[in-house]
């Protein structure tokens, strides 16, 4: 068995293995945890390492060859004419999101070795982390709508149980209850929309539905329900109330994985808008069914709505972050503002739909938005890790009582400075590259939006400089005279993310051309997505 045949076998089964190996690890963890605690930690890290091997092999293949792979569960790999089995359909955008999920989950597992060492009930914690990782991988890799709903529910149930992990304090349980109520209602509306689409077309596969979509009135209802419920899970503004509570009250490693889950729901919005309704984006619809109704294309009307929501999200996130006095809650509101940037990229891309595809600036805005998903997961993740390290050392979370920590926690303050500049969009860090793309392309559509985006970036910088001054600089407080530096595993996790931030910041061209470019092309190319599954094309 040569190396090429082993790699070939690994490559063929890699899509299923990426979902199945964390699932197997999650079921084995309670049994291994009865033997020894350290053995369980090593086992979990090795499961994540094995998954990253498969992700690396699959990503290498898809980004270089740019074909769309399918994997049929439980039968021969030939595709039948009406597709009857559940299949995974992987294009470059799915692989991009899978890389984000992998980095976030791996770093969180390394971080929680040191962070959660003194708490009990750790076997359930690691089981839930692995289950949530399997759910997130399933959400981004699947090609079947009902399968997406099932993995969405797996992720939200596991993350709710993880948010409520510190059961001795009342606030964590209250945040988890708010999260599960909003998340359950959102998922039920997604199921309602899937039922409407199934009742009309008798198909659950995304590619099959996209090829026969006729855009009747019921399809419009399903689109509104899908985008609304998935945007609710992603933290867009009228429905963002759960996000600062949950991000602020969960343990820091759990918050990091929750960032990944939020981005996976945002991936759902992209997939629905561009692939499922791809053919109908340039159709004009008569709103209210009048004979001389507003002749707006679907792309334009949806784009206007998304851009409005994005602007409101950015402004609300930044202004609410100004008046917070709780460290992690403040970073939670900054995360809400960052999601506004991604939605701005999506909205501008939708606004510039023409029947032949996107215009040049629209494509650049979409590239900026998708690049910003990756950068935002890294930047906001690093801020949450630093906040967790500060909480680990001082057991204090209010900004009024912290101060002067840079004397004892030197490395942690360096990482905070790196995260500060990355979030605010300064060169040479990665936030600059994606935000510059968004500013430039949005300016060509409408200058006002670009000015609002730049202003909220500056406000974010102001907010975080205030936080840096009040936490790390300033006179030493006698209560914190003997705080120790964060333990090794926390520092290793923060080093990994900082190295990635600096690397992408210095070489953004390489990342853009090889990874973000294929992802954006795969997103807009809905006919390629359909051809991979439906024999005979549209």
């Amino acid at each position, binding site marked *: 068995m040569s190396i090429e045949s082993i790699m070939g076998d690994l490559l063929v089964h890699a899509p299923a293995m990426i979902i199945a190996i964390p699932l197997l690890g999650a079921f084995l963890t309670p049994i291994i945890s009865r033997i020894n605690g350290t053995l369980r930690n090593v086992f979990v890290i090795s499961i994540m390492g094995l998954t990253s091997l498969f992700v690396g092999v699959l990503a290498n293949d898809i980004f270089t060859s740019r074909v769309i792979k399918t994997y049929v569960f439980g039968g021969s790999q030939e595709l039948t004419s009406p597709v009857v089995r559940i299949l995974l359909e992987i294009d470059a955008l799915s692989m991009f999101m899978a890389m984000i999920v992998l980095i976030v989950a791996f770093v969180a597992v390394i971080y929680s070795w040191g962070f959660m060492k003194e708490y009990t009930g750790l076997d359930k914690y690691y089981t839930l982390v692995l289950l949530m990782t399997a759910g997130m991988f399933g959400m981004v890799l699947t090609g079947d709508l*009902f399968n997406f709903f*099932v993995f969405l*529910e797996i992720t939200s*149930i596991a993350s*709710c*149980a993880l948010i*409520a992990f510190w*059961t001795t*304090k*009342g*606030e964590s*349980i*209250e*945040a*988890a*209850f708010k999260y*599960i*109520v909003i998340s*359950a*209602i959102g998922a*039920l509306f997604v*199921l*309602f929309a899937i*039922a409407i689409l*199934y*009742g009309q077309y008798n198909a659950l596969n995304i590619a099959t539905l996209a090829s026969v979509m006729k855009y009747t009135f019921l399809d419009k209802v399903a689109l509104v329900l899908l985008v609304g419920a998935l945007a609710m899970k992603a933290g867009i503004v009228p429905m963002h109330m759960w996000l600062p*509570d949950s991000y*602020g*009250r969960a343990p820091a490693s759990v918050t990091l994985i929750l960032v990944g889950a939020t981005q996976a729901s945002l991936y759902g919005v992209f997939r629905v808008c561009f692939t499922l309704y791809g053919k109908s984006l340039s159709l004009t619809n008569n709103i209210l069914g009048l004979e001389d109704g507003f002749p707006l294309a679907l792309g334009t009307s949806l784009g206007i709505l998304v851009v409005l929501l994005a602007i409101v999200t950015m402004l609300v996130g930044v202004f609410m972050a100004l*008046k*917070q006095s709780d460290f992690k809650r403040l970073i939670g509101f900054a995360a809400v503002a960052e999601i506004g940037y991604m939605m701005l990229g999506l909205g501008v891309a939708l606004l510039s739909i023409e029947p032949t595809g996107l215009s040049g600036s629209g494509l650049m805005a979409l590239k900026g938005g998708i690049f910003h998903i990756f950068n935002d997961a890294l930047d906001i993740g690093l801020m949450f890790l630093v906040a967790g390290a500060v909480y680990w050392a001082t057991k204090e979370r209010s900004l009024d009582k912290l101060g002067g920590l840079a004397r004892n926690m030197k490395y942690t303050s360096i990482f905070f400075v790196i995260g500060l500049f990355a979030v605010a969009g300064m060169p040479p860090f990665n936030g600059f590259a994606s935000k510059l793309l968004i500013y430039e392309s949005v300016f060509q559509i409408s200058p006002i939006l670009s000015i609002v985006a730049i202003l909220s970036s500056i406000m974010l910088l102001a907010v975080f400089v205030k936080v840096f001054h009040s936490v790390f600089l300033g006179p030493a407080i006698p209560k914190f005279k003997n705080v120790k530096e964060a333990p090794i595993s926390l520092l290793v996790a923060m080093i990994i993310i900082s190295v990635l931030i600096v690397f992408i910041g210095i070489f953004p061209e390489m990342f853009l051309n090889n990874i973000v470019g294929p992802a954006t092309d795969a997103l807009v190319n809905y006919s390629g997505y359909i051809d991979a599954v439906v024999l005979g094309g549209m």
Partner: protein
Amino acid sequence: MIYNIPFIAVAALILIGLYAVVFKRNLIKIVIGITLIECGVNLFLITLGYREGGIAPIFTNLPSGTSATMALPVPQALTLTSIVIGVAVLALMLALVVHIYRHYNTLDAREVRRLKE
């Protein structure tokens, strides 16, 4: 007209469930409202599979002389999955309500509010 009654029931269940979640203050009533919405969506999934004059989709011992149309089995599998997910969410929510009662000693949603602004 009689074939539209399940859809009217679906709309009624979802509206009553939404009313309970939005306007009621007792936490247990909010949980019951979510269960009502879930029942409505499951009923909608099952109703989609009906075919007129259809029999149950089982091949064993088909009664002779009946029509050959069968109700669709795929929505039944989808509804089963949704019921299982609903059971898991309900168990999680009730466990959280028990914890909240232990900490705050009240089940009123307006008193359970240490996380403000």
